[in-house]
């Protein structure tokens, strides 16, 4: 089990012939992800690491039926139309693995996908991994590394940082836990999918016994999780670590989402909300497995 992706998930890559697209296609395929095709207009008929290239997403859909996931390595200005293309072809989940997208394009692509019944994850996500089954994006980097540090287990992981989506599984592993699915939700100030949207998925997943989160200042994702927990829609142990308490207010850092304005989005606001809702707050990442150990009956 796990959430969102598993062995049978049908995945395509938009922008498969580019530098990133090609390298990450190889990684996903080697890991065992079911890649049914990729797109690059005008390059239909070619293959990238054995994955067939098509001109459009609709071409793939006509040949293979419904597509579960599209991973996008289309930068900047081209991203909005690429997301719209995927939504028009009925792709269920669309995950743009690029950063620095214009904010109005982001809001428009998310709204458009929603109208078409699709869901955007990110933008700015480095991916999702269900260990031993499938990976989308480039979370894990290469197969050796991914196999070593993403071990299957019963903790669902969210991260707001691409890098830390590798760290939390590692500290969990050191603490004797494995992970069911790891999701990096992205680094932009507006995201198609929030952790709170996915908490019910982890609630429903029989393999997941608890959720661990790497959180940061800025935005309202953690406060939204607190609402879901308080309303009883997520009942498993929820442990969060929040970074950035000391970052100065009003300054935006390399994650465009890390900005505290007029006290909103501060570490304190997040920590208070989670505690009040009945979640647990770890002082350091290494405290996460210690808390889980107390709260999860083995």
């Amino acid at each position, binding site marked *: 089990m796990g959430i969102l992706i598993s062995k049978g998930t049908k995945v395509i890559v938009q922008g498969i012939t580019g530098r990133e697209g090609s390298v990450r296609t190889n990684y996903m395929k080697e890991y065992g992800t079911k890649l049914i095709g990729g797109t690059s207009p005008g390059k239909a008929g070619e293959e990238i690491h054995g994955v067939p290239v098509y001109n459009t997403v609709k071409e793939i859909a006509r040949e293979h039926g419904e597509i579960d996931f599209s991973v996008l390595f289309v*930068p*900047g*200005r081209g991203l909005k139309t690429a997301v719209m293309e995927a939504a028009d072809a009925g792709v269920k989940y669309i995950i743009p693995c690029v*950063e*620095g997208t*214009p*904010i*109005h394009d982001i*809001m*428009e692509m*998310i*709204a458009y996908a929603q*109208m078409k019944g699709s869901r955007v994850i990110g933008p700015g996500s*480095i991916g999702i991994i269900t260990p031993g089954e499938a990976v989308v994006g*480039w*979370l*894990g*980097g290469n197969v050796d*590394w991914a196999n070593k*540090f993403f071990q299957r287990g019963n903790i669902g992981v969210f*991260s*707001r*940082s*691409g*890098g*830390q989506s*590798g*760290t939390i599984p*590692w500290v969990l592993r050191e603490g004797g836990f494995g992970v069911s699915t790891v999701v990096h939700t992205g*680094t932009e*100030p*507006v*995201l198609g999918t929030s952790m*709170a*949207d996915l908490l019910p998925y982890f609630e429903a997943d029989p393999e997941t016994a608890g959720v661990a989160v*790497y959180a940061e*200042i800025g*935005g*309202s994702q953690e406060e*939204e999780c607190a609402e879901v927990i308080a309303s009883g829609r997520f009942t498993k142990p929820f442990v969060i670590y929040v*970074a*950035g*308490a*000391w*970052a*100065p207010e*009003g*300054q*935006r*850092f*390399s*994650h*465009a*989402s*890390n*900005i505290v304005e*007029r006290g909103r989005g501060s570490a304190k606001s997040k920590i208070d909300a989670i505690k009040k809702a009945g979640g647990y707050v770890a002082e*350091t*990442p*290494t405290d996460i497995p210690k808390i889980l150990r107390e709260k999860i009956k083995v």
Partner: protein
Amino acid sequence: MARFLEYQGKEWLSKAGIPVPKGRSAATPEEAKQAAEWIGGPVAVKGQVQAGGRGKAGIVKLVNTPEEAASAAAEILAKTVKGLPVRQVLVEEKLDIKKEFYVSLVINGAREARSPMVMFSTEGGMDIESVLEEKIIKMFVNPVNGLQTYDGVDLASQAGIPAKDLSKFASFFAKLSQTYKKYDCQTLEINPLIMTGNGELICADCKMEIDNSSVSRHPEFGIKIARDLPGEPTELDYIGWSIEETDARGTGFLMNMGYDEVSPYHIGYHPIGGGSAMMGLDVLNQVGLKPANYADTSGNPVGSKIYRVAKCVLSQPNIDGYLLGGFMMANQEQWHHAHAIVKVLREILPTQKPGLPCVLLLCGNREDESLEILRTGLADLMTPDGPGKRIEIYGKEHVTDTKFIGERLLALSQEYRAEKDARKVG
């Protein structure tokens, strides 16, 4: 920076067909006088700085003649507000004010919104934070269709605008919303929006911020640097932006944090990854050190990009240490960092900063090879009396152990300062 001064924002509003007062910017009293002559009649002279509370700071003055405009400008241009010098004034016609309103558009990333949000209030002209919540009408704007006139009518009507004025406000809101998107704004705030004696709506002030990620598609704005900085851009910021602007292979983010280049216990800060950077900022503050700058080399950048960032970080004058803060199990191959850091330290330490504390934490993908590159490449500097005697290299055993790393850096920095002070006395 992607934030416009009032007069710049108003110029762009005017170009988009949104009414602003007749006015012109001036950098000298003489220019201010000419502007006032061109306008004719009483004018407002408004100092241009990126700070609120300009009225209280005494940089907004109402005058009746061009001569008075010149002397008001002379007085205002001599001032600094919150550390920022006033370099320009905006001279504009004095408005016949019947009523003041507040209107703004911002990005709302909350999951029920994921859209622009317009806020409107009949309580204009004061700090919006001091206006009662129920007096501010909020509405999400559909990102695909934009704000329609019927949305505008709804917004105005909820705020209690009389029936005869509803369509006037509605078309103003629709136009403002289109402009907000057309210019790729992050924030567009008009406070106050004025209704004049003869019923016209005019933007009496303007705060316009452009989305950093959209700056490249607006060459017409002439924005030199798309960063949210603590003050005016420094040389470091311009160099940092040039590294990023011309090379899309991974992130190479660099900016100043308000370091004066003399105060003690400032650290050349080089975290890897935005998340790791937050953890590092937390620990530096906890142990009593300060980041001289902010940086981030992640998203699998090439070695040359990492090298350029590291060289800038380490070249800052009078820093008392360098932290390569890789507080994460990176997915990217870390050997690019190892190669770049060896090259920079070999260039900087022996000739410019012998004995500088350098705590290097590098974890994740290809960690063993990367640490070996660091150890081998720096071995001859790391002798007891060598220029690299305060280099310490750590891996995944300390990946989230921020406290340990922070305390090592503090201890080494204290030792380094004592050595520096002793040399001064000697």
